[in-house]
């Protein structure tokens, strides 16, 4: 039986996990409320941080970007 500690490592791992570990993880999540919560948290945070970064980038002012371009080209 997978421990919670091992389960969360698998959830936030970047590597593709082997099929039998994947199966173990699925079974673990079915019975473990805390790890299920953890998994959802990771999902929510990825989505929210992505949106935050995109929102920040979208505040970029076109005129400002133009003036940086001119400045850089002037210095060429």
């Amino acid at each position, binding site marked *: 039986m997978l*421990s*919670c*500690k*091992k389960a*969360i*490592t698998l959830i*936030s*791992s*970047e*590597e593709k996990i082997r099929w039998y570990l994947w199966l173990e993880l699925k079974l673990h999540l079915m019975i473990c409320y*805390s*790890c299920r*919560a*953890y998994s*959802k*948290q*990771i999902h*929510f*945070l*990825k*989505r*929210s*941080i*992505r949106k*935050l*970064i*995109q929102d*920040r*980038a*979208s*505040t*970029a*002012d076109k005129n*400002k*970007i133009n003036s*940086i*371009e001119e*400045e*850089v*080209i002037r*210095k*060429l």
Partner: protein
Amino acid sequence: MLQDEIILIQKLKNKDRKSLEQVVRLYTGHLYKACLGLGFSEQEADDVTQSVWITFFEVIIKFEGRSTVRTYLFGILYKKASEFRKKNKKTVATENIEDVLDQHFDEKGHWILSHSPVSPDRFLESCQTLEIISKCLDYLPLNQKTAFFLKEVEEEMTETICKILDVSVNHLGVLLFRAKNQLRECIDGKSR
């Protein structure tokens, strides 16, 4: 790499004015927006973007063409951003995330009740609170933040991210693992 890109790089090396202007117009917005995304102010983003170009023009002659111009520029951006942060802000010593995680579990590897994750609903509420998530994002060390940015926002390939950050695939995995857990820890902590 595309034939066009190879020709472009050659022209840049020959200091072809038209090509230099072309790349400046093509990538300045991208670099500037990336700086804003990483949490730099407008003035800082302006300074960092300009210093990226200065360095790019200095080193273009040595560019071996092992990556695209875009990847190369992002690599310089990452270096400039790190230098900038080091100069202007003392880095806050944070506890090692692996140690923090260890404290959540008992000797059998089960969650200790008082440390178990807050409910997803509560967590999501915090995620939707701008002050909370922007603060948590800004606490992240620049290397973790940039790794997360390139992977989740720019959706770059692993190989490209490794080139930009100059790390191995293994180390990138560690950075992303830490970024996610550090962020989760911070948001979870502010949801209690």
